[in-house]
């Protein structure tokens, strides 16, 4: 019973993460949400007694894919542009 409740909570979290990753405007936030999606997914694989898939999901989904996404954002200057905008904001405030 308690396993069922935990599974239900995890699946609800998964759905919320999937919707959030799609609907956020900021790409960086979207990637972080996607990362948490992968972690929850690996826990669900553990509950479904598939530890092979859990290890792979945690290493590939949460680790390598997010690093590749970050590298891509860096490559297309999506992170840098955001930094510069906020830095420009700073001297105006002082």
């Amino acid at each position, binding site marked *: 019973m308690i396993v069922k409740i935990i599974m239900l909570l995890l699946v609800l979290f998964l759905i919320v993460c999937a919707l959030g990753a799609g609907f956020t405007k900021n790409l960086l936030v979207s990637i972080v949400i996607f990362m948490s999606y992968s972690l929850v997914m690996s826990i669900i694989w553990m509950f479904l007694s598939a530890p*092979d898939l859990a*290890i792979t999901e945690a290493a590939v989904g949460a680790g390598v894919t997010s690093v590749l996404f970050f590298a891509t954002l860096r*490559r297309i200057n999506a992170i840098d542009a955001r930094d510069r905008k906020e830095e420009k904001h700073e001297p105006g405030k002082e």
Partner: protein
Amino acid sequence: MSRVRSDYEKSFRARFRRYISGEEELKDVDYMPLFEKQIADERAEDEKATEHYLVPPIKDPQEDARLYAEYSGIKWFRRLYQVMAVVLCVAICGVLIYNIAFMPGFGSADSPMNNGVSERYLEKGEEETGVTNIVTGLIISYRGFDTFGETHVLFIATIAVMILLKLRKDEKPVVAEGEEEGGDIILTTIARVLVPMIFLFGFYVLVNGHLSPGGGFSGGAVMGAGLILYSASFGFTKTAKFFNEKIYDIIKVGSLLLYSMLIGYNLFTGANGIASVVPLGRAGEILSAGLILPINILVGLEVACTMYAFYALFRKGAI
């Protein structure tokens, strides 16, 4: 040392090689003007034929606006496109949810998954392949052809990323100055402790693939993540001391070729009912299960190389 003829640079072969690698236009080769004249003639004829259809260049902005209003079918099409996309998504969702209602419950006895095939794998798997972790036996032995294809897909994906992102020799690297040196002192100190542990864990998962959960793909992914952590904390110059492009080529292509040979032998003996020369050993020992252990290690090396290659190509455009 091979002797290069003095007129090699001017020969058609050398020119063609340069043309293939995009360094030179293949224009002034002897027989090219003939073709070019023909092509130019055809192009002129084409232009003459389509002269009437060409819209004259617009100077007046009001005229421009009028033309835009006239040809605003594009705008209408775009709106229709959005509406149709939403409708299509909702329709597909509805069909899928409707179909889910007819699926058997999770783990129920009368679902079509519980047929004789999976039962036979679970009963005879340990005896036939000599593994205690039946998933690896299934992936590498019974469904060896799928894994073979997947590994080739990884190889092809790396090649595609290389074609897209690899820098030519005369291009500047994209890594900004100062970034190459790596992170701060806390990160490097901890990475010095953590990276060997990650590698050890990855290798454990890799080698114990036929005994406990894990196997080639999981262990390779963990090892690749360790390599990425090393190069992110110490910089690419330090990583290149033990993992540069030459070693990468040797490991990647060598492991793929060896894997192809081993799986070919496996498929040949399996299809013809010949007993393999590699003994299965006692199930549960580390040196057992025939060819599954070397195949696991080779797949893991392949996956680790792919992960690191993706990271390095995305970050600096070379390995």
